[in-house]
C-alpha cells in the first residue's frame, strides 16, 4: 500500500528533524519536559504504526484473496470463533499496557514542581498578548520571555480574561491559562536560542495573532537582560523627538492603559517601560520597527482584528505619532 510507505517515510523524516526549519516543531524538543513528551509520543507512534501495518495488511489480504471470482462456491457460513475473539480482545489490551505504563510514568514525571530555587515566571494571558512577571526579580514584560539555559524554570499560568493556552512547543506542551486558576509547568531548557510559540486555546477574534517568543539565554546574557529590565525607563534626551513623544504620551489616552515606570500606571495593555528592547510588538506578530509602531499607534485594530487597543479619539497627528514612536524606541 503506497499510503503506508508514505506515512512511514514522511514520519521518519519529520521525527529525525531534518526536513527544514520548523520553529514550532514538537518533534525537535529542547527541554527536559519537551523531550519527555516527545519520547512518549515516539513510543506510541511505533506501536500505532505496528497496529496499523498489521490490521491494514490483513484487510488488504482479505480483499484480494477473497474477491469475487466466477465459479467460486458459496462461502461456508461462519458465525464466529470464541478463541479468536478472545485473542483479538487480549492482543490490543496487552499493547495498551505498553502504552499506558509509560504514559502514567510520564504524567507523574512531568507533573511535579520544579525545585524551590527554580526561576519563577508568572504568565498571564490577555486578549491577545502575553504578560510575563518575574516575581522574584521584579521584572514585568510582554510577549517575549527570557529564561536562562540549563536552569529549572517554574512557570505559573493564568489569565486576565478568557481561556488561553501557553505553548512554546519546543520547550514543552500546552497548559491552559484559565481565569481564576493557576496552572504550573516546569522545564529546563537545554540549548540557547529563540523558541516561538503561540496561544493554543481559541480566545476570540485574534487568537491567531497571539504569538509568543521564549528566549533562552546563556547565564550572563540573562543577567544582563534582567539588569536592564529592572532599571527605570530611559529618560529621553532634552529637546529630542523622544522627549516630545513623552509629552504626547503623557497627555494622551495611552497612560490609561499602559505602564511606563514613573510615567503611567495603566494595566490594560502591555508594560512599555522597556518596549524598545523587544523584537516584536502586538503579540509577536509585527517587527518592532518605526513603520509598524506608527501604524499600530494610529490604528491598532486595522493591524490586529478586534484589538483591545482602539483607535485614539481624537486621532493623533502624524507628528505626534512620529514623536511617540521615537519615545517608545528610546525605551530600551
Amino acid at each position, binding site marked *: 500500500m503506497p499510503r503506508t510507505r*508514505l*506515512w512511514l517515510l514522511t514520519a521518519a523524516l519529520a521525527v529525525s528533524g531534518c526536513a527544514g*526549519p*520548523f*520553529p*514550532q516543531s*514538537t*518533534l525537535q524538543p529542547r527541554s527536559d519536559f519537551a523531550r*519527555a*513528551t516527545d519520547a*512518549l509520543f515516539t513510543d*506510541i507512534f511505533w506501536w*500505532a504504526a505496528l*497496529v496499523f501495518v498489521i*490490521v491494514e495488511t*490483513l484487510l488488504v489480504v*482479505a*480483499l484480494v484473496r*477473497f*474477491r*469475487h471470482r466466477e465459479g467460486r462456491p458459496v*462461502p*461456508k*457460513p*461462519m*458465525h*464466529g*470463533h470464541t478463541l*479468536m*475473539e478472545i485473542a*483479538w480482545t487480549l492482543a*490490543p489490551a496487552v499493547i*495498551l499496557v505498553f502504552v*499506558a505504563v509509560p*504514559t502514567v510514568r*510520564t*504524567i507523574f514525571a*512531568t507533573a511535579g514542581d520544579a525545585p524551590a530555587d527554580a526561576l519563577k515566571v508568572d504568565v498571564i494571558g490577555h486578549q491577545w498578548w502575553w504578560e510575563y512577571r518575574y516575581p522574584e526579580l521584579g521584572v514585568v514584560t510582554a510577549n517575549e520571555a527570557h529564561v536562562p539555559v540549563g536552569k529549572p524554570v517554574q512557570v505559573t499560568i493564568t489569565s486576565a*480574561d*478568557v481561556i488561553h493556552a501557553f*505553548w512554546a*512547543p519546543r520547550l514543552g*506542551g500546552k*497548559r*491552559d491559562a*484559565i*481565569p*481564576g486558576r493557576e*496552572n*504550573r509547568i516546569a522545564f529546563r531548557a537545554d540549548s540557547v536560542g529563540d523558541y516561538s*510559540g503561540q*496561544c*493554543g*486555546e*481559541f480566545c*476570540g*477574534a485574534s487568537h*491567531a495573532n497571539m504569538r509568543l517568543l521564549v528566549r533562552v539565554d546563556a547565564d550572563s546574557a540573562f543577567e544582563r537582560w534582567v539588569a536592564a529590565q529592572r532599571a527605570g525607563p530611559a529618560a529621553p534626551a532634552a529637546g529630542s523627538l523622544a522627549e516630545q513623544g513623552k509629552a504626547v504620551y503623557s497627555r494622551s489616552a495611552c497612560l490609561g492603559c499602559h505602564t511606563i515606570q514613573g510615567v503611567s500606571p495603566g494595566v490594560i495593555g502591555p508594560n512599555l517601560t522597556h518596549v524598545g528592547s523587544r523584537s516584536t510588538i502586538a503579540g509577536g506578530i509585527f517587527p518592532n520597527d518605526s513603520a509598524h509602531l506608527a501604524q499600530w499607534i494610529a490604528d491598532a485594530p486595522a493591524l490586529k*482584528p*478586534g484589538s483591545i487597543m482602539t483607535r485614539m479619539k481624537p486621532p493623533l497627528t502624524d507628528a505626534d505619532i512620529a514623536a511617540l514612536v521615537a519615545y517608545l524606541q528610546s525605551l530600551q
Partner: protein
Amino acid sequence: MSEPRGLKSWLTTTDHKRIGLLYFWTAFGFFLVGGLEALVIRLQLAQPNGHVVSAETYNQLFTMHGTTMVFLALMPLAASFFNYIVPLQIGARDVAFPRLNAFSYWVFLLGGLLLNASWFTGPLFHAGTLNVAPNGGWFGYANLTERQFSPGPNIDFWLLGLQVLGISSLAAGFNFIVTILNLRAPGMKMMRLPTFTWMTLVTQFIIITAFPVITVALVFLMFDRFFGTHFYLQQAGGTPLLWQHLFWLFGHPEVYILILPAMGIVSDVLPTFSRKPLFGYPVVVYSGILIGFMGWGVWSHHMFAVGLGPIADSVFAATTMLIAVPTGVKIFNWIATLWGGDIRGTTALHFAVGFIAMFIIGGLSGVSHASPPADLQQTDTYYVVAHIHYVLFGGTIMGLFAGMYYWWPKMTGRLLSEPLGKWHFWLQLVGMNLAFFPMHFIGLLGMPRRIYTYSPDLGVTDLNLISTIGAFLVGVAILVFLYNVLRTRRRGERASNDPWGGATLEWSIPSPPPVYNFSVIPTVTNRLPRWSTDRHGPIQDPPATPPAPIHVPGGSWWPMVAALGLPLMALAPLTHTLWIVFVGAAVLLFGIYRWAFEPFEV
C-alpha cells in the same frame, strides 16, 4: 391505500419512509453547506497570511462548519436511515409514534434554519455586517462565550439553535427506543436484530442520556448571557471549567452517537457483499453496547491541558485507551467477515472497506491523544483536526455513503450507477487523504487549530496547500455523487426487491416499499431470514398484494405546528422581546394538545 401526492401530503406526512427522505435531503443540504464552509476555510489556509476572509468571518466559518457537520449533517443523515430502514429491518409498518417522528423532523429543520439564519441577519441586530454567525467554536468554551466577551447575537444563535436541535434528537430517541423494542416482527428476538438496528438502539440510549447534559449546560449559558447569573464566571466564585465538564460529558458520548450508526451500516453491508454472515455477531453487538457505555467515562480527555492533576489525568487516560479494545474487536470481526467470503466489489462495499481502513488511522491517532503528556503537544493543533476528520469523514461519512449506495435502491427504486460510484469513491478516498493526512504533520510541526492566518516561518505552507487541494478533490467527488444522483433519477436502472441478495427483511419487499411496508408481517425464525444457512431455509417474501386491506394512518398538521412553537420561543431572547415566548409556548402547547386528542389510528 395508494400513495398520497402533493405538497400537503409531505408537510403532513407521518410515514417513516417519507420522513426518512425529508431527513435525508435536508441533512444532505446541510452537509453541502458545511462542506462549502470547509472549502472556504481551506482556501483561506492554502497560503500563509491568507486574505480570502476576515478573521471574524473565519471564526464563524469553522464554528458553523463544526456545528453544522455534527448536528445538522451527520446526526440527521444517520437519522434518515433510522427512519427509513429500521422499521423495515424489524418488520414494522411504522415507528411507534409517527407524529412524534414528524415533530422531530420539523424541529430539526427549523433548528437548522435558525442556526443558519445567523449568516444573513446581521442588519436586524445593527451588527454592521451581514453575518452574525456563531463564532465561539463548536464547543463554545465559556467564558469566551459569555456576554462580556461575545456581546453580539452570534452566540445566542448558537445556544438557542442547539437547544432546539436537542429537543429534536431527544424526541427521536424515545421514539426509536420504543420502536425497536416494541414493534419487532414476531420471532425477531433481540439477538436476531440486524446489526444496524442494534447500533441504532445503542445510539438512541446515548442520545437520551447525553443530550440532557448539554441542555443544562446551555441553560446555564443562556442565564448567564440574559439574566446575569454567574455559572461560568470566576469573579463570582464559579469557573469556566464547569462548562467544559458539562460540554464534554455530552460531547464525548456525542462522538459515539456519530460513529455507531456508521458502524452498524458497515456491519450490514459487509456480510451482504461477502456472502457470509457477520462474524461474531453477538460480540459485535456487545462491543457496541460497551463502547456506548464506556463513552461516558472518558470526557476529561478533552481537558488534559486544563491541569486536572496527575491522578485524574491518569484515570481518564486509562479509560480512554480501554475503548480501543471493543473498537478493535469490531474491526477484527469485520475483517473476519470478509475472510473466506466471496467479495463482490460494489460501491457500497468499497465505502464500507474505506470506512475500516480510514477509521483505523483516526482511532490510532485517538490513542495517541489519550496519552496526556503526548496530548499536551497535540491538543488544539491540526493533529487533532486530523484525528477528527479521519474518524468523522473517513469513518462516519464513509459509512454513511456505504449506506447510501446500499439502500438507495430501496429508498428510491433505482440503482445508483456503479461506475460513477467507483469514481466517487476513489476521488473521495484520495481527496480525503490528501486533505487530512498532512494535517498530522501540520499539527506536529506546531500549527494550532482555529487560526485564520499563520506565519510562513512555520514551514507548513506546502503541507497546507496539499491539504487544500485534497479538500477540493473531495468536493469534486461529492459533485460526482450529485451527478450520479441526478442521472439515476432519470435514467437509473430500476431496482428489484432485492438487488444485492441481502439477508434482512427490508429486501423482502418492493423498492421503494408500499405505504404499508409489509403486505403481511413476516414471522422470523433466525438472524438472517432471507438467507439459507445450515439450519434454515430463506423465509418466504410477503405477497405483492396484501391479502386484506391495510389501514394506513392519515397525515397530521399538528406536529409541524407544535414544532413551530420552539423556534418562536427562541426568537424571544434573540430579539429581547418577552411576549414572543408566550406566543411560542402557546403555539407549542396548542399543537401538542390538538395532536394528543386528534383521532389518529396507527
